[in-house]
């Protein structure tokens, strides 16, 4: 037998010790109170499929953000034209990212163009062939920035909503160009969380067009500059939803951006919840001016294109406070206040993928997974012990160390354990046994040819080495590809398998050989228990 350099047993001992220390908290299901603070504290996190929770993949409709910017440009263009004393027949949002200006005097074209170009630098201006219309489109670079900003802003807004709602350890990440991944572990009420996250929450105040003909508008003849929006009221007695149309001036006179606070209050008379909102100084000034201008008219409070209420303005309102009432439950009012405080999403989001696992299913999965892992491992250990006797138990030791190393690394890199991840571990037990089987079968073969035990061991390990290397690397290739392409649970499976394969090479080739050499050192044995 080859001589055993000292560094080999030392390496085995150190790896085993560190792995045990790192794996221990996870194996005990958490850091126990007696566990000293100077020892590793990291515990493998359980995936959503094991502890329950909500996984959401959202798509941010970034094009809508650009569209909104173009719509906002209409007011800017009007202002610029007015200040420059240029007359125009109309300014309108004529395409997705386009605003067109029709001039009254074609000879003012050059001047208008010059003024608009300096005042609105993020627009590309083109002239129509008829020489009376200018078209402004948002330039591509700014569009790209707006799209990026819409996603970043959405992430921040969603994070702030979730933080205020109160979820432990949420994950909110950007995925690709225009997607957001939200993971909320341990969540109980998923539909409420979804409503909280997915709502755009664009709060707008619009003046009701009292002179317009609502009936005609409903038949399709909407007056220029107007819009029909609906309000939804639920009748308290019949519980029937009632859709009521309103004819509103299209222009938003005040929006939720100027809010500083939103709180839930209760109506003293009916004990009904409502949300009271407070504007900042600019908003308060605007609000007071507006209410003064529109006394005895109705002002509609519109949230995401639904009219919540349209109270009549009795008098000028100072102090910058308003209230949103509707037939809310206390819960709805509470969530609405959170959403308004956190602010509107810059663009609507849609749910592309959702996975909710209830807490009881997660618990069942863990129990099942652990039972299966235990039964499977015990079967294999018993078989190996019987089939290869002493060397079989050595292999079992290697497999056990393999699992401990895997758990230690998973804890150390803070990986997430999923149900397929447990399955991966169970499969790994089977496969790491294989490396040991390869070695043991080789040793047996060498023994049969009449070689002495110590030589047979050396030859067995040497010849099995290449086979183990090749077979592990090819399996590792598939594990890595699985990791690259997989999502969520599949990734967890790939991680467990890949780490385990590397650990398996180490334990089967290196550890068992060192231990065997230590045991057989300075002994002249005639037979091997294999």
């Amino acid at each position, binding site marked *: 037998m080859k001589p055993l350099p000292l560094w080999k047993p030392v390496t085995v001992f150190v790896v085993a010790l560190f792995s045990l220390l790192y794996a221990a908290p996870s194996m005990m299901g958490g850091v126990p109170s007696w566990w000293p603070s100077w020892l590793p504290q990291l515990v493998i996190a359980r995936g959503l499929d094991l502890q329950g929770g909500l996984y959401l993949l959202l798509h941010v409709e970034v094009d809508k953000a650009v569209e909104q910017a173009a719509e906002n440009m209409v007011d800017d263009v009007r202002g610029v034209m007015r200040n420059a004393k240029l007359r125009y027949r109309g300014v309108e949002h004529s395409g997705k990212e386009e605003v067109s200006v029709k001039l009254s005097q074609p000879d003012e074209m050059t001047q208008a163009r010059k003024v608009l170009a300096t005042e609105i630098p993020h627009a590309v201006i083109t002239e129509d062939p008829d020489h009376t219309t200018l078209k402004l489109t948002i330039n591509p670079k700014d569009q790209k920035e707006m799209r990026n900003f819409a996603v970043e802003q959405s992430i921040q807004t969603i994070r702030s909503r979730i933080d205020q709602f109160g979820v432990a350890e949420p994950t909110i990440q950007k995925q690709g160009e225009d997607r957001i991944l939200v993971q909320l572990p341990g969540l109980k009420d*998923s*539909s409420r969380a979804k409503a909280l996250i997915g709502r755009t929450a664009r709060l707008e105040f619009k003046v009701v067009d009292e002179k317009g003909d609502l009936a005609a508008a409903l038949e399709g003849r909407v007056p220029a500059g107007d819009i029909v929006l609906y309000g939804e009221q639920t009748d308290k007695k019949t519980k029937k939803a009632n859709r009521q149309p309103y004819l509103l001036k299209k222009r938003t006179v005040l929006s939720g951006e100027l809010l500083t606070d939103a709180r839930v209050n209760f109506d003293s008379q009916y004990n009904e919840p409502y949300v009271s909102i407070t504007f900042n100084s600019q908003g308060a000034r605007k609000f007071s001016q507006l209410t003064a201008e529109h006394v005895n008219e109705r002002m509609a409070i519109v949230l995401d294109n639904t009219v919540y209420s349209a109270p009549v303005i009795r008098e000028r309102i100072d102090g910058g406070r308003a209230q949103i009432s509707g037939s809310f439950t206390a819960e709805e009012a509470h969530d609405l206040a959170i959403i308004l405080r956190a602010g509107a999403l810059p663009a609507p989001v849609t749910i592309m993928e959702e*996975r909710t696992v209830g807490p009881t299913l997660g618990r069942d999965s863990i129990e*099942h997974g652990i039972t299966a892992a235990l039964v499977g491992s015990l*079967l294999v250990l018993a078989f190996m012990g019987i089939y290869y006797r002493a060397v079989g138990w050595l292999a079992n030791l290697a497999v056990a160390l393999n699992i401990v190393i895997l758990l230690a690394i998973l804890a150390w890199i803070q990986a997430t354990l999923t149900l*397929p991840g447990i399955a991966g571990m169970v499969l790994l037990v089977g*496969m790491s046994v294989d490396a040991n089987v390869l070695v043991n079968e080789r040793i047996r073969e060498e023994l049969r040819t009449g070689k002495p035990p110590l030589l047979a061991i050396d030859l067995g390990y040497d010849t099995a080495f290449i*086979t183990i290397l090749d077979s592990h690397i090819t399996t590792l290739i598939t594990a890595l590809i699985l990791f690259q*392409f997989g999502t969520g649970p599949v990734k967890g499976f790939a991680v467990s398998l890949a780490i385990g394969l590397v650990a398996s090479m180490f334990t089967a080739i290196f550890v068992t050989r060192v231990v065997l050499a230590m045991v057989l050192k300075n002994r002249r044995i005639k037979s091997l228990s294999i």
Partner: protein
Amino acid sequence: MEIFPHKTSIDFVGISWIAYLLTGLMFVASTISLATQGMHMGIDFAGGTLIQLRFQAPPALQDIRTTMVGLGLGDVVIQEFGTREEIILRVQKQTGDDGKPGELAAKIIKALEPLVGKDPIELRRVEFVGPQVGAELEQKGFLAMLYSIGAILIYVAWRFELRFAYGAVIALAHDAYCSMGLLSILQKEFTLTIVAAVLTIVGYSINDTIVIYDRIREEMRRNKKSSLAEVINIAINRTLSRTVITSGTVVMVLLALLLFGGEVIHDFALVLLFGIIVGTYSSIFVASPIVLFFEKKRSDHTKTAPKEEVAS
């Protein structure tokens, strides 16, 4: 303890006609099933909503069906999941009719409540996959399969020879195809987790094949005068006990997973179990004969010496 006598000398190459028959049979059965009934695509790929509910007492499926028809959700598949109290609903329609996302489950539970009186219905799981994500996942799964096969082809060609690489790749394509065939025949749902299972089969099958190839390479060097068919026979026989023991232990573990792993992991374990058995079979009866086939195809009978190993 030993399962096999020291020296088996089964003429694997000679009895390969049995293998052709069996492989042909599996291939035909898989192809017919895939062509006629196809894969039962799960919502991961087809898109849609899956809702798992647990009732306090076994509900009447017929009543649930009637209630679902009343909701007008289009096609709804209703089935028991593991126990009789547990029900899975699969809905094609993406969202509630008012277009608000994620209210479908709440709506369905509300509609079902009159059926069970006061006992609460527990929402165990909701999965919703939009059509775009479904298409992306399908593409990803397909690419993963393709890349694995490509990478293995390159690695085996580098470590061994090209004809070995062909054999390995054909063997694992065989395993993947038969596993898909089984899924189609049993009409088990094809999900992301199943893709992981099939890829694992690919990984295991290649592992098994490499062990035999490695032995073929070794025996080729040792027995320069023997024909390739003889060498292959020797190699398979020498590794036979290892092959059976390893597959046996993996099968043991998978049986434990199948029996105790719970309903969520059940199909995953089933596909793996089938795939491991087929993968073991294909290493012996598909991968090795193909090396021989490419050997025969060579017009010049000059035997090229196998590549030397890099490390030893």
